[in-house]
């Protein structure tokens, strides 16, 4: 079963870190990513540019509205994600807990809706 692990953190925290600190966390992420690749749980994953680069798009009455910024202003912002394959929620939680940001920020674990098999 696939799960999306969404990584939320305060962008300002990352921005206020020294280069050495950022490097350390980057290293932890590399190790984590390699770990779930080796264990066969990795499906995909990326880091995102900060929310300052976000554009929100809505179509109403056929018109496209674009707004600068993320859909919702929140204390912690979506900063990246992993898509994993896990046996069940317990395994997904166990993997989510190993993401370095889990110590400071939050990881939202969402099951992927299974695609119905073609008739």
């Amino acid at each position, binding site marked *: 079963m696939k799960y999306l692990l969404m990584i939320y953190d305060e962008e300002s925290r990352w921005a206020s870190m020294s280069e050495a600190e950022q490097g350390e966390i980057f290293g932890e992420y590399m190790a984590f990513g390699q770990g779930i690749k080796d264990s066969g749980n990795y499906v995909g994953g990326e880091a995102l540019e900060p929310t300052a680069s976000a554009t929100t798009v809505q179509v109403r009455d056929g018109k496209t509205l674009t707004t600068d910024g993320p859909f919702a202003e929140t204390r912690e912002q979506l900063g990246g994600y992993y898509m994993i394959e896990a046996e*069940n*929620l*317990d395994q997904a*939680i166990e993997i989510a807990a190993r993401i370095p940001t889990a110590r400071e920020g939050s990881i939202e674990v969402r*099951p992927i*809706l299974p695609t119905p098999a073609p008739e």
Partner: protein
Amino acid sequence: MIDFGDIFREQRPRAVATLIRLLGDFDLAEDMLQEAVTVALVQWPRDGVPSNPGAWLVSTARHKALDHLRRDKTFERKMGELEHLSTTIVTPNVDKDHGFPDDLLRLIFTCCHPALALEAQTALTLKTICGLTVDEIARAFLVRPTTMAQRLVRAKKKIRSARIPYAVPDAERLGDRLAGVLRVLYLVFNEGYAATSGDKLVRDELCIEAIRLTRLLRNLLVAESEIAGLLALMLLQDSRRSARVGVAGDLVLLEDQDRSLWNTRSINEGVALAEDALRAGGGGFYALQAAIASLHAQPARAEETDWAQIAALYDLLFRSFPSPVVALNRAVAVAMATGPEAGLFLIAELESAGELSGYYLLHSAKADLLRRLGRKREAAKAYARALELVDQDAERQFLERRLREVRSS
């Protein structure tokens, strides 16, 4: 005359747990078990109770599920996993003596999974394992039945869609997960015990079910001393159930209770279990509280209570599990052991820390100590503050009585 209700109640937790594993669906398992019970009510009075009623119920419910599948196409769609069902349905028969002990553990750990909201864990436990109706659970928790029904639907849906496993956690996580289970069980017990509003029968039922389930859990995980501690704590508190509420529905304090109304059997069992829990190295949260409850339960008269020992145990409890509420209890024990002034000093410290300023028990404890010192005017003020914060009727009646006493004397 055999009470079939008792048999069903006793068999239900294991039977429903095994059926959920076999059928892979909470609702289906509960519905099929209900149908099996209906059959039993016809057959058992006529043919006698089968030698293993649990196995009989499981196998009858299993066949009911297959019957439905053959007859009903929409039912089949609802089932989703037809193949899964037809293969698992021919798995070996239920063990004659023990059933599948692991199934009950699986069910308990699934109902109390931390990915579910605490109120959903509680409701699911009472509904699925104990077999309480939605109406009963709703009445116990003072919410509307529709709200409770939605809560249960949502919880079961999450178990399915997020794939919460039907499994006993591995050894590494067992301790953590068990703490969550015990919390739910104690919450159920307290909901029945602490509050005196609402339907009394349902509330008594909650205490009985919480104790029954904790007892089952203890038999399944004998090595876990915290289960013994929790069971002891529940039994010791429950032993005072009929003594703690007066004729007028008002609360009777421990020191004023008629101890002849206490249930000696529960006390004896509770004290023995509390000792077991401590001996098993249990400096755990429940083991320590059970030890304190034992010291309250044993003396024949309130004056003989060993408050010094109780204060020492609260010290231990506070060191391992610091919380303002534990600190308040410790302050009261210290007051009883060495005098009200010492207790008031500790309460003043707590008050200045601010965390408990909205907690009525802090103000009622303070009021009580001031009353004992004869400082009536201050006591009245503290009782009045406690009354502003209290929301339980029996407690309110008690505080109002005390307030009248200090004002009039």
